[in-house]
């Protein structure tokens, strides 16, 4: 009998624990909101974590929960349905695709102003130029990076059918072992891993910007409802996030500490490198004049044309309804500049 009671007591304790975790209510006058990231916690998102840790969102009256993403989640979908308030979603590609499918989302800012992907080959290998991709095996992710690859091939007049394009492994090992000729890498993740394992001097990189293509990614999105009904919340969120990012740029060590407190199994050296790369991507383009998260509508139009040409989207979307710079512009320029 005692044993049985113990089991029940343990069960009850478990349920109580859970109840506590869920109902731990915040101060009453804060607005509850969530931010859905595009991926697992890492310093690519450091500014948001710093802003949360330093209470910048609370200062703006927001009780913000940061929800990480994962391989089978789509921020656009979660934001459109109201499951999450804000989203740091894939990029212009996923924003266009979502609008093309009539998901009611609005882009309120862009984090990475230039293409975060590079294509990596061996420096001592046969691939010296984009033209050499012909007849070779290139692996890429079919989650956005494939559009960059196709656009680069098209710009250089290469028929994609001549290139063996395969979905990319989770691991970079096939490239390191020489089974793959060209691999896709984000500047802040895979490139670091490859560089660490092979040495930077052994690598040759191909950058989209060299082919005249820019592919802004890491877009901040809200639902149409939020944009219409809670403009102050959106502005407050942007203000606090900018403050967090500027702190992260000024004190990278502290920012890495903040992220590593969330995900302690990460590699510190890698995360420091990642933050430095994220900074480069975030302050590129028009950001020095226009401030963080700026939406460069000229770049947006060029990218949209790329998607229409590649038939990724069926028709051009309503740009005025999809992109809203008014929230950014409501913040004084001095506060926006990095």
């Amino acid at each position: 009998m005692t044993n049985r009671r113990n089991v029940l007591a343990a069960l009850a304790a478990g349920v109580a624990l859970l109840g506590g975790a869920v109902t731990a209510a915040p101060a009453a006058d804060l607005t509850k909101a969530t931010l859905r990231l595009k991926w697992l916690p890492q310093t690519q998102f450091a500014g948001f974590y710093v802003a949360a840790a330093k209470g910048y969102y609370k200062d703006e009256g927001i009780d913000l929960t940061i929800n990480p993403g994962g391989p089978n989640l789509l921020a656009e979908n979660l934001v459109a349905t109201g499951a999450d308030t804000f989203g740091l979603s894939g990029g212009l590609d996923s924003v266009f695709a979502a609008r093309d499918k009539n998901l009611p989302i609005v882009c309120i800012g862009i984090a990475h102003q230039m293409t975060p992907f590079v294509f990596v080959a061996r420096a001592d290998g046969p691939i010296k130029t984009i033209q050499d991709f012909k007849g070779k095996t290139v692996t890429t992710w079919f989650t956005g990076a494939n559009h960059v690859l196709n656009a680069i091939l098209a710009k250089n007049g290469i028929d994609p059918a001549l290139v063996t394009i395969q979905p990319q492994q989770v691991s970079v090992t096939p490239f390191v072992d020489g089974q793959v000729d060209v691999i896709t890498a984000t500047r802040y993740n895979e490139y670091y891993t490859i560089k660490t394992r092979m040495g930077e001097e052994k690598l040759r990189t191909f950058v989209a910007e060299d082919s005249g293509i820019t592919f802004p990614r890491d877009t901040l999105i809200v639902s149409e409802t939020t944009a219409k009904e809670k403009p102050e919340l959106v502005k407050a969120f942007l203000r606090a996030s900018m403050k967090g990012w500027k702190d992260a740029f000024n004190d990278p060590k502290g920012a890495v500490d903040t992220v590593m407190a969330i995900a302690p199994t990460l590699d510190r050296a890698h995360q420091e490198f990642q933050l430095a790369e994220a900074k480069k991507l975030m302050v590129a383009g028009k950001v020095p004049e226009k401030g963080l998260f700026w939406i460069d509508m000229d770049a947006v139009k060029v990218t949209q044309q790329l998607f229409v040409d590649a038939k990724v989207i069926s028709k051009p979307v309503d740009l005025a309804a999809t992109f809203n710079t008014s929230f950014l512009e409501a913040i004084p320029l001095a506060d926006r500049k990095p």
Partner: protein
Amino acid sequence: MSASPLTHPAVTPGGSAALRLLGPLGRLARGLAILLAVFAAWEALVVLFGIRPYYLPRPTVILAALVQTPAPYIQGFLRTLSETLIGFASGALFGIGMGLLFFRARALRELVFPLFIVSQTIPVIAFGALVVLWFGNTLFAKAAIAFYLTFFPVTVNTLLGLESVDPRQEALLRSFGASPLQLMTRLQFPTALPQIFVALRLASSLALVGAIVGEWFGDTVGLGVLLLQGMYTENVVSIWATLLVSALLGTGFYAAVAGAERVLVFWGAEQ
């Protein structure tokens, strides 16, 4: 872990208190000895054959990783345990309830049962993204997946157990004027209990699977999160450390259910 209790009859409690105490302690000691031997052999193999740590790290390296940053593993253990417990408890209750209902209402059972069967052929991970939509990033989203995996075996075994009641015993009790409720609590349910526990033991492992898979859909804490993070950062040591913690959780929870079975079924048989 499901080997011995499935294939051997449960140890009959009895004898002196000392004997009863020695049983579990002896088993524990034997288990620990085997575990130590496995670790020693593993360590030796890796060192002897020079296996790259990328494929198989030495156990000492894995244990060192656990000792250096214990927090995420402890938190992950507790979080995954809570999700598993909630999913398991709700799945077990629902399963037993449905089993009782199906036992009483044959028409309902024939109407609904095929749907239950079809539900089990659906890869639950396909719903991961939807479950997050429906339940948000709460414990309940994971518990819902664990629930989905556990309720069916419990339903089936409850039903089978109830149907295995000897009709003569039933007739006998009825002839003494037992009410349907008395019949259930005194005869049918106790008779079905061993069969129910077979399913509960299976469900304990399935609930853990559900919780871990559920954590792949955007969360910060949990063993599933650590696995995913380890995979994408190619941190093989962390993956192995998480596997060890998962094994500990799986074995512990299984043992707890098996322990409850020994106590409860014994108590049930005395009625």
